[in-house]
C-alpha cells in the first residue's frame, strides 16, 4: 500500500521546520512514495517478477539568494535531521544567484483536483500474467514469430506531497499500468525484432492484449529480409511512434532553460514562423485521465493550457520560475517540461498522405541520438518500408536519414489521424526533401 498524505506531509513538515530552525530563509520539499510491481513473461513462462517500494525526499534550502539541494531515501528521523543540516551547510558556501527564489505565491495551484489520475484497481499477479500471456500467445500465432525478447506487465501507484515555506502544500495520487510485448521473427537467415506497448493511468484504457501481440508480430515480420537502398533525397513518411519525437525536440528547444542560455536553435524565434502555416501545437495539462496531465509543476505552479504554435508561428515557451526571471517572463508551470503535448490534426487523411508522391520512404524505427538542439542538425539510423504509389512494399534497413530541424519544421505535412495515447502525440507526418544515406 502506498503511504497516505498525512505521513508524507509529516515528513515534509519536519524538513521545512528543521530548515527554518537552522536559519534557512526559505525551503521546499517533495516527498514521494511509490509501489511498483512488474511481471515478465518469456515463451509463455514467467521470466521474472519484481516488486519495489520506494520512498524518497528532495529538499532545497535557501539562505536569501543562496540555494542547495539534497535527496535521500533514508527517512528515519535522525537521518533526516542530519541531511537537512548538511543541506543547510552546503547552502552557506554556495554563491548567491539573484534569480534564486520560490515561485510567486499568486501562481501557486489553488484549484480543484478533478482530473481523475488515480485508478484504485489492483491487478494481481495472476491477472498480470494472463494479460501478457495472451499478448504473447497472439504474437506466436503468427508462424514467422520464432522467439521473444520478453513481454511485461507493470503497475505503479504513487503519491507525493510538495511543500514550501510560502505556504504551498499539496499532492495527489497517480497510477500507471503498462503492458509491453517484444518478439523476434526469422526467415531465410534474417532475424528481426519489434514491439508494441500500451501505458495508461487507468487499467480499462489499455489496448487489448490481442492487439498488442498482433501488432508486435506484424511489425517484426514486416521487417524481415530488408534491403539497403541507395543514397538520395526523398520525401519521408514518419509513423506516429516516430513523428512524436519531433515534438519532443521542439519542446526541449523552447524550454526556458535552453532559451535563457541561448543553447537552442529556436532562440529569439517568438512570434516568428518556425513551422509552415498549417502547423498548430498545443500543450494541455488538464485532460482527464491522460498520461501527461498534472495540476501543478515541480514548483507548485499551476499548469495552464498553452498554445505553443499557432499557424506555424511560435507563440510561447515552456517556462519555470528561475529561467523565466532571466527572460522576463512568468512561470507557466513547465518546470518539469511539457504536459500533454500534441500537433493538431492536419487536413489530409493517411491514405492520401502516402499517395502524395510516387516513391517515398515509410520510417517506423530510428536508432541513435543524432539530434543537435543547438544547431538543429538531425541525423539518425533508420528502418522502415519503401512506399510506391501509395503501397507499402519491401522493408528497408541500415540506412540513415538526415536534415536540419529548421527546414524539417517548414516541410511538415500532417495527416488527420491524431490519437492521444502518450504524453507527446503526433499524427502521421510527411517531411519533404530529407537526405537518405544508404549504399
Amino acid at each position: 500500500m502506498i503511504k497516505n498524505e498525512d505521513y508524507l506531509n509529516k515528513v515534509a513538515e519536519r524538513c521545512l521546520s528543521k530548515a527554518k530552525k537552522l536559519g534557512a530563509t526559505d525551503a521546499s520539499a517533495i516527498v514521494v512514495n511509490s509501489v511498483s510491481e512488474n511481471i515478465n513473461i518469456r515463451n509463455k513462462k514467467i521470466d521474472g517478477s519484481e516488486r519495489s517500494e520506494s520512498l524518497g525526499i528532495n529538499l532545497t534550502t535557501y539562505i536569501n539568494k543562496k540555494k542547495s539541494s539534497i535527496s535521500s531515501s533514508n527517512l528515519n528521523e535522525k537521518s533526516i535531521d542530519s541531511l537537512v543540516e548538511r543541506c543547510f551547510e552546503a547552502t552557506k558556501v554556495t554563491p548567491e544567484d539573484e534569480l534564486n527564489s520560490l515561485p510567486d505565491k499568486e501562481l501557486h495551484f489553488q484549484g480543484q483536483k478533478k482530473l481523475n489520475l488515480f485508478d484504485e484497481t489492483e491487478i494481481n499477479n495472476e491477472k498480470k500474467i494472463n494479460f501478457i500471456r495472451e499478448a504473447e500467445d497472439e504474437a506466436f500465432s503468427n508462424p514467422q514469430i520464432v522467439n521473444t525478447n520478453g513481454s511485461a506487465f507493470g503497475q505503479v501507484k504513487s503519491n507525493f506531497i510538495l511543500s514550501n515555506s510560502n505556504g504551498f502544500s499539496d499532492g495527489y495520487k497517480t497510477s500507471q499500468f503498462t503492458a509491453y510485448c517484444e518478439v523476434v521473427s526469422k526467415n531465410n537467415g534474417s532475424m528481426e525484432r519489434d514491439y508494441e506497448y500500451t501505458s495508461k493511468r487507468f487499467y480499462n484504457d489499455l489496448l487489448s492484449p490481442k492487439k498488442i501481440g498482433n501488432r508486435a508480430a506484424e511489425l517484426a515480420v514486416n521487417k524481415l529480409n530488408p534491403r539497403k537502398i541507395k543514397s538520395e533525397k526523398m520525401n519521408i513518411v514518419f509513423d506516429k511512434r516516430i513523428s512524436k519525437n519531433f515534438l519532443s525536440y521542439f519542446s526541449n528547444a523552447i524550454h526556458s532553460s535552453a532559451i535563457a542560455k541561448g543553447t537552442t536553435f529556436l532562440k529569439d524565434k517568438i512570434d516568428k514562423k518556425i513551422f509552415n502555416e498549417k502547423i498548430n501545437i498545443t500543450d494541455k495539462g488538464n485532460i482527464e485521465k491522460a498520461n501527461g496531465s498534472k495540476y501543478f509543476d515541480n514548483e507548485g505552479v499551476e499548469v495552464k493550457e498553452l498554445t505553443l504554435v499557432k499557424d506555424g508561428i511560435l507563440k510561447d515557451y515552456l517556462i519555470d520560475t528561475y529561467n523565466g526571471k532571466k527572460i522576463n517572463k512568468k512561470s507557466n508551470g513547465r518546470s518539469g517540461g511539457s504536459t500533454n503535448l500534441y500537433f493538431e490534426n492536419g487536413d489530409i487523411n493517411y491514405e492520401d498522405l502516402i499517395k502524395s508522391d510516387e516513391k517515398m520512404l515509410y520510417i517506423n524505427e530510428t536508432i541513435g541520438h543524432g539530434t543537435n538542439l543547438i544547431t538543429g542538425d538531425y541525423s539518425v539510423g533508420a528502418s522502415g518500408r519503401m512506399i510506391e504509389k501509395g503501397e507499402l512494399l519491401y522493408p528497408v534497413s541500415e540506412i540513415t536519414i538526415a536534415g536540419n530541424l529548421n527546414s524539417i519544421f517548414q516541410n511538415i505535412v500532417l495527416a488527420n489521424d491524431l490519437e492521444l495515447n502518450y504524453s507527446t502525440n503526433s499524427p502521421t507526418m510527411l517531411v519533404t526533401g530529407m537526405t537518405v544515406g544508404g549504399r
Partner: protein
Amino acid sequence: MSNFFQNSDIDVNKAEKIVSDTLNKCDDGELYLEDSKSESILLDDNKIKSSNYTTDLGYGFRAITGDVVAYSHSNEISNKSLKSSSENLKSSHKSNIGSYNTDIKKTNQKFYSDVDPIETKSLSSKIELLNKINEYARSKDSSVKQVTASFLGEKKDIEILRSGGELLKDTRPLVRINVSVMVEKKGRKETGVYGIGGRQSYDDYLVNDNWKKVCDEAFRIASTNLESKPSPAGEMQVVLGPGWPAILIHEAVGHGLEGDFNRKKTSAFHDLVGKKVASDGVTIIDDGTIENRRGSLNIDDEGTPTEKTVLIENGILKNFMQDRMNARLMNTKSTGNGRRESYKHIVMPRMRNTIMLGGNNTQEEMIKSVNKGIFAVSFGGGQVDITSGKFVFNCTEAYEIINGKIGSPIKGATLIGDGPSSLKEVLMVGNDMMMDPGIGTCGKAGQGVPVGVGQPSLLINKMTVGGTKI
C-alpha cells in the same frame, strides 16, 4: 565500510537466516545491500546552477529458480521489510530443484582504493575550481558564449549476503569532471564537450592543472565544428581515431556478446562461437581489472571477482560475457559481468572495460590509403539493435578524407553498420591503442552502469555515413 544493520532492528545473523530460509529451494539468489552517496555540482551560464547531494540506502533480495528471477527491493532495512520480501519471493517459486549456489571464488584483488571522493575535497574548493574553469574557458576566445562544467562524485558500499552466511563486500568510488563549451561566430553556434574521470579522488585527476586540458579540448572541438561543412551521405571507408571511438566495439559487438541475449538466442551472434566474426588481427577483450578505470570492479554485483575475458581472438568468437544465472543455464562459468545499476535493479550481464587490442599499422598509413572517406575522432553516443545487429553512433568530431589527405571538418553525422559483418570489414588495426578518458555510461533495459572502452586507430572498409550531402 558501512554497517547496514546498525540502525535496524535486525542483525546480520538474523538476516542470513531469512536469506537461507528463503533460498533453500532455489537455484541461486542473494541479499544485496547498498549504501550510496553522490553529489552533483553544476556551473552553468556563469553561475553555480545546482549543488545536489543524494544518499540512498536499501536492499535487493533475489531468488532464482531455473530461468525465473523473483526480485524484491526496498529502502527500509528491517525485519518486517525483509520478511515481507521473503514471502513475496517464496510465493513466486513453486519449483523444488534447489541445488546450485556454486561457491564464489575468493579474491583479495583491489583495482581501486576505498577513498570517499565527496568528503576528500571540500564543497567550497569544488565550487572555486568550477568558477576557475568557467573563467579560463571563457578567456580562451571571444567566440566562447557559454560554459557548463560539472563535478559528479559517488561512493557506493555494497554487501552481498549469500545463503549459508557468506558475506562479500566492496567499496566503489567514482568521479567525473565534465566541461562543455558553446562557441558562436557569425550567427553560427557549435559545442564541444570533454570529460575525465574514474575510480579515484577528484584530485588524482586534477594534478598538473589537468582541468585546463579538459577546457582546451572542449574548446578545440567546438571551434573545429564552427568550420564544419555538411557531411557526405552513403557508404564509404572510415578511419576511427584511438580511445573513445571504441564505443563502436561496445555497440557493434559488445552488447551482442552479453550472455542473456545469447541464452535467449535473440542476439545476432548466438550461433557464432568458434566462427570467424572479425578480420585477422582483431582481438577484443572485456576487462574488469584495469586499475582505477571507470568500468573496473573488484567483484561484480553478484560477488564474482572480475577478470579479463577474451571475447574475440584473432577474429574468432571465443566467449560471451556472463552473470551467474546465464552461465548456469548455458553450462559455463560467470565471467564476473553480473552488474546492476543499484539495489533497485535486477542483475544482467553487462560490459566493464571493452577493448580492442593494438596491431601494427599507423594512423598515417590508414589515412593515406583512403581515396574518399571520413576520419572520425570523437563520438557522442551509440545504440544497437541486438537482434538485427544494426548499430549506430554519432560523430561529434569528424573530417573528410580526400585522396589520402585529411580535409575539412564535417558536421556531426550518424554512422550505421551491421555488428556481425562490420568487424570483418576492418582493413587495418593501429599500433596506438588508447583507453577513453573515463566518461562512459552504458544503458540497457533502463539501467545505466559506468563502463570503459579502448581501441587503437582502425580502418574500416565500409560503413554508411548519415550526412546530408550526396
